[in-house]
């Protein structure tokens, strides 16, 4: 019996700075202790010095891949305190941006999964296919990532006419590509051997640890904020929530693929049903909520993101707490890696879709 403690990280060929302290017995993992904090930027303290409009690009940056999903609960919190009603066309455009962001983020997940498993085609293909959706986002908002597109009271500008046709082309192309992804990656015998049956999170543990997102849905619990507590126009759209009972890394990856299919269906429906009208309220720059507090949540691509806003009537928030899905899934890392070999640690760890910048804020 030889015990060894190895520090994996903070610089590692994966994504983000995050260290794992791994206690080994030979090659078998005994315990994994996460060590976050290498990208802690003090978001909550910095937000107290910025006014409510300056906080918009600030709160996109933790998970810049799905910027619009991160901003949803923030604008809802401000609108809740100020009792604003957003025009319906603005809400439809918000949903379109949110689902585009979801596809972009899930494709990046598969790209990095390819690197971790050693499948370099799976890195190149998602990165290339992402560009189609980033082009769409660029047509709508003008930026590739980090759009700052959602405002309290609506969205920044209207969508151009050509978006509808371009979006339908991109979705039709990508639906055929997803079948190829399943063939080369999900049903690839090497990936199946590395991911099926590995990193199992049971249903009881998932509930007890309070995890969110695809990690929760892969363990058999059907919970999604878009269905539990519908916001924007999600109650008018028709989509399903994929759930799996296995709880292993393969199931978590499979849920990402199914969610991309549902997102494309939502985008097509939203572009068909969108009414005409204004896209934002004219607040004349006066965004100053009265004193009060509120707790709002939304479903981002990694799970449920929540904002707890306490305002004392000033120009800047008194306290603004952001609870991100990666921070809530941090608790699951030690559970799913017990008993694995050291070489199986990267795929099991990445299947949780842990984004260090979001967890550290």
């Amino acid at each position, binding site marked *: 019996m030889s015990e060894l403690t190895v520090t994996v990280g903070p610089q590692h060929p994966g994504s983000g700075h995050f260290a794992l302290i791994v206690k080994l017995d030979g090659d078998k993992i005994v315990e994994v202790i996460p060590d*976050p904090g290498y990208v802690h930027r003090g978001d*909550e303290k910095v937000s107290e010095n910025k006014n409510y409009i300056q906080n918009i690009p600030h709160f996109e940056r933790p998970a810049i891949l799905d910027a619009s999903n991160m901003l949803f609960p923030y604008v809802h919190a401000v609108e809740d305190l100020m009792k604003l009603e957003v025009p319906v066309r603005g809400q439809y455009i918000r949903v379109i941006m949110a689902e585009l962001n979801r596809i972009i983020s899930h494709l990046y997940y598969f790209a990095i999964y390819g690197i971790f498993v050693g499948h370099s085609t799976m890195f190149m293909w998602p990165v290339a296919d992402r560009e189609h959706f980033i082009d769409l986002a660029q047509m709508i908002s003008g930026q590739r990532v980090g759009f700052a597109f959602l405002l309290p009271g609506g969205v920044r500008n209207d969508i151009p006419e050509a978006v509808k046709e371009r979006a339908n082309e991109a979705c039709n192309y990508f639906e055929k590509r997803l079948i190829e992804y399943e063939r080369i990656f999900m049903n690839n015998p090497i990936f199946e051997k590395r991911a099926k049956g590995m990193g199992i999170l049971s249903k009881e543990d998932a509930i007890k640890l*309070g995890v969110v997102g695809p990690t929760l849905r892969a363990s058999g619990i059907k919970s999604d904020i878009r269905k539990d*507590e519908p916001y924007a126009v999600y109650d008018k759209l028709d989509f399903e929530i994929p759930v799996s009972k296995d709880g292993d890394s393969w199931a978590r990856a499979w849920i990402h693929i199914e969610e991309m299919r549902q997102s494309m269906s939502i985008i097509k429906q939203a572009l068909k049903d969108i009414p005409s009208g204004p896209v934002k309220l004219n607040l004349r720059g006066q965004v100053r909520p009265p004193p009060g507090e509120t707790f709002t*949540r939304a479903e981002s691509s990694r799970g449920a993101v929540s904002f707890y806003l306490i305002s004392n009537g000033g120009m800047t928030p008194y306290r603004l707490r952001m*609870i991100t899905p990666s921070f809530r899934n*941090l608790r699951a890392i030690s559970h799913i890696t017990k008993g694995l070999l050291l070489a199986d640690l990267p795929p099991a760890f990445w299947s949780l879709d842990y984004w260090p910048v979001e967890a550290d804020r």
Partner: protein
Amino acid sequence: MSETPKIKHEPPKREKKIADNITVKLRKDILEIEIKPKRIKVKVKPESIKKAANFFKNKLNIDHVASVSGIDYPNDNEIEIVYHTGTYKHKDLSDLVIALAFRISRETPKTPSLTEIWPSTEFDERETYEMLGVIFEGHPKLEKLFLPEDWDDIPPLRKDFKNPRR
């Protein structure tokens, strides 16, 4: 959270029923209850936090905690700690968030840890410890989580923390 909360003069029925249940069972420990659509906030006395938490878990079937937040009120000389809880098992309560709040003194902020009741609070309590200086008694590993190892200033989220770069 719906984007158009109408100003209700009558509190919503389901939330009122749950709030009445809590008031009946935990009579003297409660200071105040606020009811909004899909959100209930229960303010308890700091000594009875464990009793309230056990009641939430066993009788109301709250099975996880979404977050632990700490807010510094230097004017009242108090720190308020809020546990936002939820349930996954009961489908008809899945959109309800019940907040359990209490206030402790700012000079000696001490409170019992709830990790035995809800294991999902482990990392959140560590973060509140390093950001606000609150000591959670009974926590399995109360150490720094995010701040650098050689941090020697007061906890940063306190209102009297002087930011050296501003």
